[in-house]
C-alpha cells in the first residue's frame, strides 16, 4: 500500500512538474517588486517556490497534444491515484506544513467528464471529510460539462484553464482535439460565476464563494511562431476581459521525440520566458499598456535588455525624471526603480531632496537609474547621453542581462 502510493507519487509529480504555474521565474524576490503574499514552503534546485503539492490525478490521456509528455502516443509509465489516496496524501502533507495546499491537474482519462468528476471528488473529500482549509487550485479539463466546472468552482480557491498555444490556428495544428472555444467557454463561465458570487455575497455574506482566488492560465512560448507582441496582447486582453489573476509563460521544452510540427530546440528559451514575465509585471504593477512595451514594428522583446530599460531607451523624451517633483507613474518608468522605491520616494520627498544616498539606501539600482534621473550629485553628463551610448555602457557592464532576474 505504502509503496504503491510512493510509486504513483513519483510518476504523477514528475509528470506535473512541467506545468509552471506555481513558479515565479522572472520575478524572483527583491527589487521592491510586489510579491504575492503566498507562502513558500520550500524551493527546488531550479529555484522555484514550492507552495502547493502540484500533482496529476492521472497521466493517462486519450488526447495527443504534440507538446505534452502525457500524450497517448508516448510510451511512458502510467498511473492514477484514487480520490481517497490523493486526498489523504494532501491532508498529511498539509498537517506537517510541507505545503500550503493542492494544485490538481490531470490527463484526460476515459472522457473529460469522467476525469473532471474524479478531480471534484478528491477536492470534495478534502473539504468535507478532512475539513481541509488549505488552498486548492484546480485545472478544469477542456470539454468538461459546465455543471462539473461549476461544482469545481464551489470547492476550489482558484481554477485554471490552460490556453497553451497563443493562437487558435496553431493550437489546432498541435492539439487536434482542442480549439479556442474549448478553452474560452469555461474561462468565460468561471469569470461569470465568480462575478455572480461576488455580487451575491455583498447581499448575503454567507452565500457560497466561487473560485475566490480567481483564475489563471498558461501559455507555451517558443513552440509556435507567435511574436511577443501577439502574446502580450493576448495576455493583456485576458487580464482585462476574463479578469485573470495571472498568466504564466512557459518556455517550450521538447519533451518528446522529435515531431516535425515542432521546432527542434536544444534548450528551452529561458531568456525569452524571463523577458515575458518582466513585461507581464510591467503591465500588472507598473501601469504599462502592452502596446507601450511592444508594437507591430518592434514585435519581439529585446533579449539583451529588460523591457523597462528598452522602453526608456526608445522614449528618451520622457527623461531625465526629476524625482523631487515627477508624478508616481513617471517615477515607476525609471529603469532601476521598483514599486517599493517609487512609493518610498512619493511618501518621503516632502521631507527633503531625494539624493544619491537616499536612493542607495532604498536599494535603487543606480547603475541603471543614473542615466534617467536628474540629480545634483550625479555628473550632469550622464543624463544627457544618447540612448545608443547608454545601451553600450550598460551592456558592457553586463547590466540588463538575464542573469539579473529582479531587474527594473
Amino acid at each position: 500500500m505504502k509503496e504503491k502510493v510512493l510509486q504513483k507519487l513519483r510518476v504523477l509529480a514528475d509528470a506535473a512538474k512541467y506545468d509552471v504555474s506555481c513558479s515565479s521565474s522572472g520575478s524572483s524576490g527583491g527589487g521592491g517588486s510586489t510579491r504575492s503574499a503566498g507562502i513558500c514552503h520550500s524551493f527546488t534546485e531550479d529555484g522555484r517556490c514550492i507552495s502547493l503539492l502540484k500533482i496529476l490525478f492521472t497521466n493517462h490521456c486519450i488526447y495527443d497534444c504534440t507538446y505534452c509528455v502525457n500524450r497517448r502516443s508516448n510510451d511512458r509509465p502510467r498511473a492514477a491515484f484514487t480520490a481517497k489516496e490523493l486526498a489523504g496524501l494532501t491532508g498529511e502533507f498539509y498537517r506537517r506544513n510541507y505545503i500550503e495546499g493542492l494544485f490538481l491537474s490531470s490527463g484526460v482519462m476515459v472522457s473529460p467528464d469522467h476525469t473532471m468528476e474524479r478531480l471534484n471528488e478528491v477536492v470534495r473529500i478534502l473539504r468535507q471529510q478532512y475539513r481541509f482549509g488549505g488552498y486548492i487550485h484546480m485545472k478544469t479539463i477542456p470539454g468538461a460539462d459546465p455543471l462539473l466546472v461549476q461544482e469545481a468552482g464551489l470547492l476550489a480557491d482558484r481554477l485554471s484553464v490552460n490556453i497553451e498555444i497563443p493562437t487558435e490556428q496553431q493550437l489546432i495544428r498541435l492539439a487536434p482535439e482542442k480549439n479556442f472555444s474549448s478553452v474560452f467557454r469555461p474561462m468565460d463561465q468561471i469569470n461569470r460565476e465568480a462575478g455572480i458570487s461576488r455580487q451575491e455575497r455583498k447581499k448575503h455574506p454567507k452565500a457560497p464563494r466561487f473560485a475566490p482566488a480567481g483564475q489563471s492560465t498558461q501559455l507555451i512560448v517558443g513552440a509556435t511562431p507567435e511574436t511577443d507582441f501577439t502574446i502580450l496582447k493576448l495576455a493583456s486582453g485576458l487580464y482585462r476581459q476574463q479578469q485573470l489573476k495571472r498568466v504564466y509563460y512557459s518556455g517550450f521544452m521538447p519533451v518528446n521525440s522529435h515531431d516535425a510540427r515542432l521546432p527542434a530546440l536544444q534548450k528551452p528559451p529561458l531568456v525569452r520566458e524571463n523577458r515575458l514575465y518582466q513585461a507581464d509585471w510591467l503591465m500588472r504593477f507598473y501601469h504599462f499598456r502592452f502596446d507601450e512595451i511592444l508594437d507591430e514594428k518592434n514585435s519581439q522583446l529585446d533579449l539583451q535588455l529588460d523591457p523597462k530599460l528598452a522602453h526608456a531607451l526608445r522614449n528618451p523624451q520622457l527623461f531625465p525624471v526629476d524625482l523631487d517633483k515627477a508624478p508616481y507613474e513617471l517615477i515607476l518608468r525609471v529603469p532601476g526603480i521598483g514599486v517599493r522605491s517609487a512609493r518610498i520616494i512619493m511618501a518621503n520627498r516632502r521631507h527633503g531632496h531625494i539624493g544619491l544616498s537616499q536612493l542607495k539606501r532604498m536599494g535603487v539600482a543606480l547603475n541603471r537609474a543614473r542615466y534617467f534621473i536628474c540629480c545634483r550629485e550625479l555628473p550632469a553628463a550622464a543624463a544627457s547621453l544618447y540612448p545608443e551610448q547608454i545601451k553600450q555602457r550598460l551592456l558592457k557592464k553586463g547590466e540588463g542581462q538575464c542573469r539579473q532576474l529582479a531587474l527594473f
Partner: protein
Amino acid sequence: MKPNREKVAYVFDGSLEGFYTAVFMAFRDKTEPSRFLAANAGQQIPLLEQLRHAPADPALAARVDLGVAKRSGAKNACMLKLAFRSGQEDVLLLIWRYLCRLFDCPDGSFCRNMLDPDVWDVLQAARRVKREVHRFHGFVRFRKTADGFWFALIDPDNDIVDLLIPHFRGRYAARPWVIYDARRNRGIWYDGKKSHDVVLENKAFSLSDGTLPPAAVADDEEHYCRLWQHYYHSVSIAQRPNQRQMKAAMPRRYWKYLPEKQSGHRQ
C-alpha cells in the same frame, strides 16, 4: 548626541522590559550607553567600561513604551518592539539612537521621514524580522509523535517563535503542537486552546537535524517524510538548474530542519 557624557554599558536580562528599563536609566542619568548587554547572551564584558545593571522594572519600561506611542503612534511603538527581536548585533544601539532623536523632537516628526538613516536602519531591522516570520510560516516542519503531538524545531535568526502563534493556531484549529527555538532554548506549546511558553528540560530531539528518536515518533511519520523527500526531488526540472536562486530564497542556514534538504535521503 551630547558630548562629554559618561560612557556606560548597560546589562539587562534580555527581555524587552529589561531593555526599556536600561533605556530609561540612561535617559535619567544622562549617560551615553556604549552598548546594551543581554546578560544571557554570553558576551565578553569589556573591563574598561563602566557597567550598570538594569533590573527589569515594568513601570519604568512602560513609561518608555508609552512615551514612544504618544509621540509617534501605537503602530510605531509596535515597530520598535519588532526591531528589538532582531538578531542583528548593533540593533539595540540603533534603537537607542532612534529613541534619543524621537524624544528630542516633541511633535514626533523625526520618525516620519523614513529616509533619515537613523529611522531607516531601525525600520529595516523590523522589516527583516517580519520577513523571517513570513518565511517561517513556510519553513516550520511538524513531526507527529507517538502520543499524537506535533513537534517542530526551528533555528531562526531573530527571536520570533511566539510571533508564529496566530498563523499556526489559525491553520490547525484545535490541534496541539510545539514549536521550539533550538538556539534560544525556548518554545511555544499550543494545547488546542491556549498557548504557553515552554523550556524543555530533557531534549529528546536531535539538534543537528530536528528528528526525534524512532520510539517517540508516530508510525506513519517516516513514510510521509519519505514521500515528501521524493516529491521535493522529483519536481525540480533538471534542464533548468538555478541553485543560486534557490539558495537566495532559502539560505543554507535554514536547511538543517527541513527534511527535504537532508542528504542521505536523495533518490
